């Protein structure tokens, strides 16, 4: 079993998807959990791809100061404070590419601190 997991990890790393594998895990069987880190002046990952109708949990953390996570198309608004994990749960009900942005003014690059949620079929 352990050998199987190790092999899967190696294959994942070889495919270049190791970052995604490290930041995505499964919560309850039906929900997808994605970790998002905020720091001046970017979100990582900056683009998140999910499936329509799949329950989603975003685990938001900050690497420096307070930031915001604002995804108005899905009514998502959260504060991200250093040293804490902010969990946001929702189920994307429409496909498309939706912008999210930091909505807590955080400095000279604040205006460019944004990302996109891509929802596919």
């Amino acid at each position, binding site marked *: 079993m352990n050998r199987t997991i190790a092999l899967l990890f190696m294959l994942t790393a070889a495919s270049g998807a190791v970052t995604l594998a490290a930041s995505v895990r499964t919560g309850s069987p039906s929900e997808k959990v994605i970790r998002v880190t905020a720091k001046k002046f970017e979100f990582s990952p900056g683009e998140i791809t999910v499936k329509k109708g799949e329950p989603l949990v975003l685990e938001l953390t900050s690497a420096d100061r307070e930031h915001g996570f604002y995804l108005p198309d899905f009514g998502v608004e959260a504060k991200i404070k250093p040293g804490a994990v902010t969990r946001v749960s929702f189920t994307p009900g429409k496909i498309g590419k939706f*912008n999210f942005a930091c909505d807590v*003014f*955080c*400095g*000279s690059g604040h205006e*460019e601190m944004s990302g996109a949620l891509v929802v596919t079929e």
Partner: protein
Amino acid sequence: MNDIDRRDFMKLAGLGGVVFASGLGFSPFGTNGGPKALKARMISQEDFYFVQLSDTHWGFDGPKVNPDAQGTLKKAVALVNSLNEQPDFVVFTGDLTHTTDDPKVRRDRMAEFQEIVSTLKVKAVRFIAGEHDAALDRGEAYRRFFGELHYTFDHKGAHFIVLDNVSDPDAVIGAAQLKWLQADLKQLKRDTPIVVLTHRPLFDLYPQWDWATRDAAAVIDALMPYQNVTVFYGHIHQEHHHMTGHIAHHAAKSLIFPLPAPGSTPKRAPMLWDPAAPYKGLGVRDVEAEVRKSKYEITELPVTKG
């Protein structure tokens, strides 16, 4: 255009980020109750004009975006000073300075900005804070240099309300300021010409880029019973016009760099300077009210002439 020399105004237009307004209290700044009401106001109110400058971001450094970052504000001041007929006053609608994490640098920038604008011939200058000025320290340095974050003043029959939607880093007006606004409005007649000066839009222009004020709806609700309300603001670094019912909103251009149209690019990053077309994307709005003819003309002026 009253007695203002149109060529003088075109010079302002060439720089961008400057707004001319006249005939306050009359349409196109809001509904006006028809010709009879206009005539009544003509007797009690004088036409006047002011100049709006916005988003000067003093201290910004980005040669690819604006290689003349140290000179643009000074040019704007010189152009305003060169007008044959000086405006009644000048307003700066926020982001006077570019933000910094260093409190000393912030104060230095504010002092430099203050020194430059002190050379305006017009001594009546009104300041409004932007988030770059006030969000990181909740307006502490701003207040020291420029005074209160929200206040009112009256000019020739028009009531001006300056609203602060930036010193709270969450970009809200807040309950206390809203209560203050409601108390101020209670003293006014329903047809008083009201001009709101603020930094961020008071409507959901494009929330995906945070181009909104969270509790703006409460402000608009408070203003809605008043018949003549116009909002001048900045923040979005481009000209924009919007109506919320009878309330008109007019965004001014920046004096440092333009931003893309809402949602037109993946990020709201500054547009790059085009050496072949300096000040491309900048321009100015001329709102001209010929009150006696009940005729209102809005002219969009391009930056480049000829």
